[in-house]
């Protein structure tokens, strides 16, 4: 319910091509994180692992508590945290639960872009997750369409 309201109240944040260049990220389909994701069994956990791997090489900083961390620095810690704190939740629930506020400070986790603008971390992650789901749907529809074509 809360998640639904949150999603409805805020516009979908999608990284434009210019922004991708700015944060030095490859488009989703050609990224190493996506390639790895497609080789793994698709589960809610694998989607979360994708999110970590996707933003690891980005030129972004995360404000966690009172300190800014590079995404490349934070990624191994987030992976270890995910390994011990994942309890079969959906990826969306996990992002909302753990990526909204910093522990134990309680303040919002922010992402700082190279131009100095700050965005909520959970919003960026949820939008990327939505983009991933969209891409998965396309891949699935393509593969099911391929199956319907009779072999010659």
């Amino acid at each position, binding site marked *: 319910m809360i998640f639904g309201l949150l999603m409805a109240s805020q516009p979908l944040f999608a990284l434009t091509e210019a922004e991708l260049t700015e944060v030095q990220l490859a488009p989703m389909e050609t990224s190493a994180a996506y390639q*790895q994701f497609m*080789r*793994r*069994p698709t*589960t809610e*956990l*694998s989607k979360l*692992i994708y999110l970590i*791997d996707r933003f*690891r090489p980005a030129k972004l900083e995360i404000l966690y508590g009172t300190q800014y961390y590079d995404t490349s620095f934070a*990624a*191994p810690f987030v*992976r*270890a945290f995910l*390994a*011990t704190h*994942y309890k079969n939740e959906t990826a969306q629930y996990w992002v909302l639960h753990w990526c909204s506020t910093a522990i134990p400070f309680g303040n919002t986790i922010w992402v700082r872009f190279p131009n100095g603008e700050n965005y909520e971390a959970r919003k960026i992650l949820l939008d990327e997750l939505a983009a991933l789901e969209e891409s998965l749907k396309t891949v699935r529809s393509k593969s099911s369409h391929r199956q319907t074509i009779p072999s010659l």
Partner: protein
Amino acid sequence: MSKAERLFNFRYLVIAAVLLTWLPLSARASEMQEFKGNASGTYRDIFDQNIFYEGTKYLNFDRLFRAIRRQPVRAKDINVFDEVPDNAYFTNRHARKKLSAQALEKGYSETEGPDTKGPLTVLKAKFFDSLASLLVRDSRGDEYVLKFDPYSHLALATSSEVIASRFYYAIGYNVPQYSIVKIRTDQLVIGPNALLFDDSGFQKKLTQEKLQERFLFLPVDTEGNFRASAGKILPGTYLGTFQFKGRGKHNPGDSLKAEERRSIRALQVFASWLNDYRMSRISTLAVAFESNGKREMKYYLTDFEDTLGAVLDREKAPMFTHEYLFDYGETIKSFVSLGGYVKPWQKRWKEADEKSASPAVGYFDNRYFDPGRFKTQLPHDAFKDLTPADAFWAAKTVMSFSDDEIAAMVKAGRLSRREDEDHLTKTLAERRDLIGRYWFERACPLDDFKFSGTLLSFTNLAVQAGFQDQGAGYQVDIDQMDGKKRQPVASFTIRENSIDLGRWLGHSQNLWVGISPASDEKNQKQPHVFIQLGSSGILSIEHED
């Protein structure tokens, strides 16, 4: 019976009693050779080596006086020809008899690796941080430890482990069998009592679901396989690790201290070649086994995932191999200079544009590489006791590998990109030359002595490798036995690599020939090599420490 007679009889009684109790015990001790276990752990090792021994080293007066007087201690596990004979720690291999490129690539091998055609039964699983390892049994009943690559560096840790194992084996150390293996999760079957060890700190029962979940964190190759290094479990009884300091506690018959062994001291040189940061007791293994009805010990080097450009689950950090874990000297330098002192590793990192060659190779180059200043994670007395003679022996062994032979061992890492293999081969070949040049300058680089008729000939390894030209030739000092004393009889300079000793051989049974590269500068002391000659030929060779 007089008092003197009573005392005499009592003395014999005591001797008889001692003999009666001691002889059966000593005979039993030599029969049994009872070996003891010696447990160790990372934190204990760090405390011992980096805090306790470093803190108390100034109370070790023997070592302190030797350091002040610059008096080195000669290695005691060497033979009369200044070589390390085969023993429980070391077996002469490539440097004595060249191994073929095929044998170098294969390394120590008992099997072809785990049988991946059948299922692999998981007996234990360990997932800690981004490290993942499994203890598996294959369909043939052999057990292996599979260690997987970290997520962002496919092939980094696995190739480093396999390549370094090939080098250490060819050099002469005992290593377990390591091979690269590619598996899929559907090949893994959970054993009935399989346990999972993870970051939670609790042992859990391993389930197929849990295993699948944990494998999501590992990198997958283009064919959908997980890449691992497979270390075969050695036959015999595991008795923990072996020490780099003091007498081994495993074997009561081992009378030498670790720091008196050239094979242990020289690990400093070999570790510098292979960029082995964690060369420490936690990467060793003592194994007792039966051989011809006798129980014997063998000491192994294991766990090479911290070599070359890797360190456990990531690339080597820039300061690794330049500083100890707690480096008091470097800390003081930075503190006193208020951070103004730019360290060599900082310059190196900056020159490398703060990135490594490739994710599969990690951070491994020869910028600012100084063979004399290479540091492992923890300081070891054995490495500090390395003398020029020990280092010469080690450098000679390193120099025995050609570029092609290095390439053959690098090939064992099964790296997918040719550029990565070439980078490793080039860096290792360059580093070999840097090590050879450095240590040949600090010891007398003469070797391969032959005595035929009255002619003593030798090879200058530094000239042979192209590090030096023939220069001013060699200074020769000859001593003869005069009664019980050594008496100098001749001192001259030669330009060739041979000396005719006919003039002096007839007068004495034994001759001592001291040779050193002649120096252009007067009063400059050059390191010597001493050769003792007798009627039967060369009796001993000794490089000056």
